[in-house]
């Protein structure tokens, strides 16, 4: 496939478009994600942090918009590019940052790092270093909700690169057969590592992959948070009502490289510039201004988020590093 650009608004805009509080909250979440990523990159640049970071700048509307519709008891599985999902689902930036720093009170006791943040208290079953790895797990969480008779919904985020993995297709089939309350959310950002989607997916769209299994699917502008919420609302409600799975393909773009430091020789400056203009934060800000918010308010949101993330990083840097004694803890839960 080629990576499409979607700018047509949905036929009927989601009510969130007019909901001042909700939209501001969404903008705030998105801004916090952006600022978390920027702050993380700064820590790397200044040598305070080492390791690999996969930033989700440019894709914030998806994480924020989808999680907007989820309760704390709903489950989410994420990917190597998971900071946004974690924050949107309710994880605390200071403990996330501590995890990046390898500190003992990071979400994973500082042993796992960016790609593995998990927080069951907020329904976050974990970011995942294996492309496609979280998808069957989300199906399992949906099965769990169904068997236990709850109305919990399970969401699995994945990149369009994960369409190459058999696990996605096995999961779609299983979810459809069992009518499970799971929403498959693809963030199609046009690239899997250094390869454009045209080189790795023969399908015209990711949404089409759901069709054979009778799973409703849509391709949606992933850079307009109102569009994101609209499509997700339908899917989450369907799942919650017991009507089975859906797949959402959100077309978006990552502003930065695959990882911090990626030279990005596989794409042009022009392409990046064009997508910068479709930045989800800019577009959300536009919508907010149309609803009467002034720049001062929006700047304050940004300033607060910057401050929050800087504080998180400062706190994290001051925490005690995970002790060597913790190397072998939590491998097992105990003998039977």
């Amino acid at each position, binding site marked *: 496939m080629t990576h499409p650009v979607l700018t047509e608004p949905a036929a009927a805009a989601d009510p969130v478009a007019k909901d001042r509080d909700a939209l501001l909250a969404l903008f705030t979440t998105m801004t916090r994600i952006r600022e978390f990523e920027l702050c993380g990159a700064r820590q790397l640049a200044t040598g305070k942090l080492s390791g690999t970071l996969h930033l989700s700048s440019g894709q914030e509307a998806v994480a924020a918009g989808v999680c907007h519709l989820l309760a704390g008891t709903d489950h989410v599985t994420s990917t190597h590019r998971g900071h946004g999902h974690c924050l949107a689902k309710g994880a605390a930036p200071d403990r996330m940052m501590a995890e990046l720093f390898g500190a003992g009170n*990071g979400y*994973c006791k*500082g042993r796992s790092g960016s790609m593995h943040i998990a927080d069951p208290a907020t329904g976050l079953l974990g970011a995942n*270093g294996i492309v496609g790895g979280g998808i*069957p797990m989300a199906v399992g969480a949906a099965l769990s909700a169904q068997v236990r008779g709850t109305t919990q919904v399970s969401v699995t985020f994945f990149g369009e690169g994960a369409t190459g993995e058999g696990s996605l297709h096995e999961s779609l089939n299983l979810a459809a057969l069992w009518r499970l309350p799971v929403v498959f959310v693809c963030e199609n950002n046009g690239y899997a590592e250094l390869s454009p989607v045209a080189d790795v997916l023969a399908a015209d769209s990711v949404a089409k992959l759901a069709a054979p299994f009778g799973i409703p699917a849509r391709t949606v502008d992933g850079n307009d948070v109102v569009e994101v919420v609209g499509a997700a609302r339908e899917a989450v409600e369907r799942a919650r009502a017991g009507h089975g799975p859906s797949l959402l393909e959100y077309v978006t773009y990552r502003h930065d490289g695959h990882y911090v430091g990626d030279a990005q020789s596989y794409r042009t400056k022009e392409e990046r510039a064009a997508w910068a203009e479709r930045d989800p934060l800019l577009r959300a800000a536009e919508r907010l201004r149309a609803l009467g918010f002034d720049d001062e308010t929006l700047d304050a949101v940004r300033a607060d988020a910057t401050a929050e993330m800087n504080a998180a990083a400062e706190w994290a840097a001051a925490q005690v590093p995970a002790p060597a004694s913790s190397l072998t803890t*939590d491998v*097992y839960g105990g*003998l*039977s």
Partner: protein
Amino acid sequence: MTVRKYWQAVNDALREELARDERVVIFGEDVAKPGGPFGATRGLREEFGASRVRDTPISEAGIVGAAVGAAMTGLRPIAEIMYFDFITLAMDQLVNQAAKVRYMSGGALSVPMVVRVFCGAGRGSGPQHSQSVESWLGHVPGLRVVAPGDPAEAKALLKGAIRSPDPVIVLDSSRLWTKRGEVPDGDVVAPIGEARIVRPGNDVTIVAWSWALSRSLEAAEKLAAQGISAEVVDPRSLNPLDEKSIMDSLRRTGRLLIVHDAVSTYGPGAEIAALAAGPGFGALRAPVVRLTPPFAPAPFPSHLEQAYYPQPADIETAALSLVRG
């Protein structure tokens, strides 16, 4: 005590655990309506309903992955993999996910699930349906692996596995599947990680599990007739391995013979022999012997299988020459 076949003991354990704990669910290929490809789940869908006992597509990765997610969110899933060989298709979910979730999440999440696996060794099933790759799983921190050697063990270890807070792979033996044995009545749960001495002895320690255990016991019987007293130790759990019990036995006998149906190189016996070469070194009075199939895939015809798997007579001979030097 009741006499049960191995598969019936498995069926009993599953039924009792489904009744005991409503979080227990079972899914896999042909396990629900058909009652299991080999009968292990017979009657369970009828008794516990279509929600808790489900047939799946032929999707080993999807099955195990769904079990991981279900286990993380409040269920106690039992997934079935039809043959041990097919675990190859689920290794990511087992090794990168199930085994590591607790560690990666700093203990915040856990994966109390069971994967029941049927090991086809010795039943004429050929190179893609006969493999024993327990050492792969034993090599993975976070997993547990048990291999019951008779009906009572099949029931008690499966119960232990289901109640474990960690992912446990239960290796059932196709060759023992219809073997009968006494099974204690009541809710007997085996601990995971404790070996048992199936037959005490002084001259040589024989370590074996699953089908190889029964062949080793036959050999021990014949050795006794020749005045050689073999101690037969069944580790039962391969991960964790009960090093202490095995080394204690070695300290008593000074000689170690390991028998298994996996191939030797980098096989499970290597770890046991390595323990003898390390902590057990002082006790070792003769070279450790590993008696296993040759380094080749498993053949299908029964006359070749006979030659491939160490037979009781081979075990007897190996033990004899180990003891007599």
